[in-house]
């Protein structure tokens, strides 16, 4: 019962925050409400017994990515944009997208529930220990490849920034 109450409250807050992100005129307000949305999503993660991932979410998204966004917004001193929705039939397209995703998700969940509802019976499901063990044994190669990706991104960013200075 408590779980349902917490879920509904934080789901509503998530939707509210993300609506503010896509509709507010001021980019700084967008970034701030995005922090809130990520926090509320982290609460949902804790509800799903993914504590480690929730902490990662707060650290990386709210801590690193949003700071990068805010830094860029303030660095460039962006004025409020002229809001004009020139895209045609946007409501129809978005509704179409929602129906497709929801139907696909419904069938996927049917598939999951047909294979037997398995509540996580592992001891300390989603803790740092269990996630870390999986990450460093079974998924070691993808984990190392993501570090390669990070290095490539760093080199790319440095190259882009240098070129802009030269011209």
């Amino acid at each position: 019962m408590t779980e349902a109450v917490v879920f509904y409250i934080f789901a509503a807050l998530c939707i509210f925050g993300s609506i503010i992100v896509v509709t507010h005129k001021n980019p700084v307000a967008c970034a701030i409400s995005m922090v809130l949305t990520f926090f509320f999503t982290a609460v949902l993660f804790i509800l799903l017994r993914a504590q480690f991932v929730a902490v990662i979410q707060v650290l990386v998204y709210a801590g690193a990515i949003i700071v990068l966004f805010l830094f860029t917004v303030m660095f460039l001193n962006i004025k409020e944009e002229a809001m004009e929705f020139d895209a045609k039939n946007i409501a129809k397209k978005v509704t179409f997208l929602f129906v497709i995703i929801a139907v696909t998700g419904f069938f996927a969940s049917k598939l999951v529930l047909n294979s037997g509802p398995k509540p996580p019976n592992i001891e300390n499901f989603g803790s740092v220990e269990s996630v870390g063990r999986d990450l460093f044994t079974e998924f070691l190669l993808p984990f190392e490849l993501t570090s390669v990706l990070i290095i490539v991104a760093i080199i790319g960013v440095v190259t882009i920034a240098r070129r802009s200075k030269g011209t």
Partner: protein
Amino acid sequence: MEITLNHYIILSSILFVIGAYGVLTRRNLIVVLMSLELMLNSCNLAFISFSYFLGDLTGQIFMIMAITVAAAEVAVGLAFVVLIYSHNYSLDIDILKLLRG
């Protein structure tokens, strides 16, 4: 009243569609990037909920990978934003039509 997988999938698709709406309608490049982050976040929520209801940790591992990719994407994207701004002194998305050959 029990919260099932369907609740999480509906929530995740609502968040994804809100993000897609932002990508399609906003004209500020930075806010477009933010809406992309929202879409990625909703995908992460779907990963975590499937991971919980299947009792399998693979979804959480995937979500950590997705966060890494999102961080790299934001870094490169914001570098491009700064570059575009220093060329044009504007971040209106219509500027990018210069990319048309």
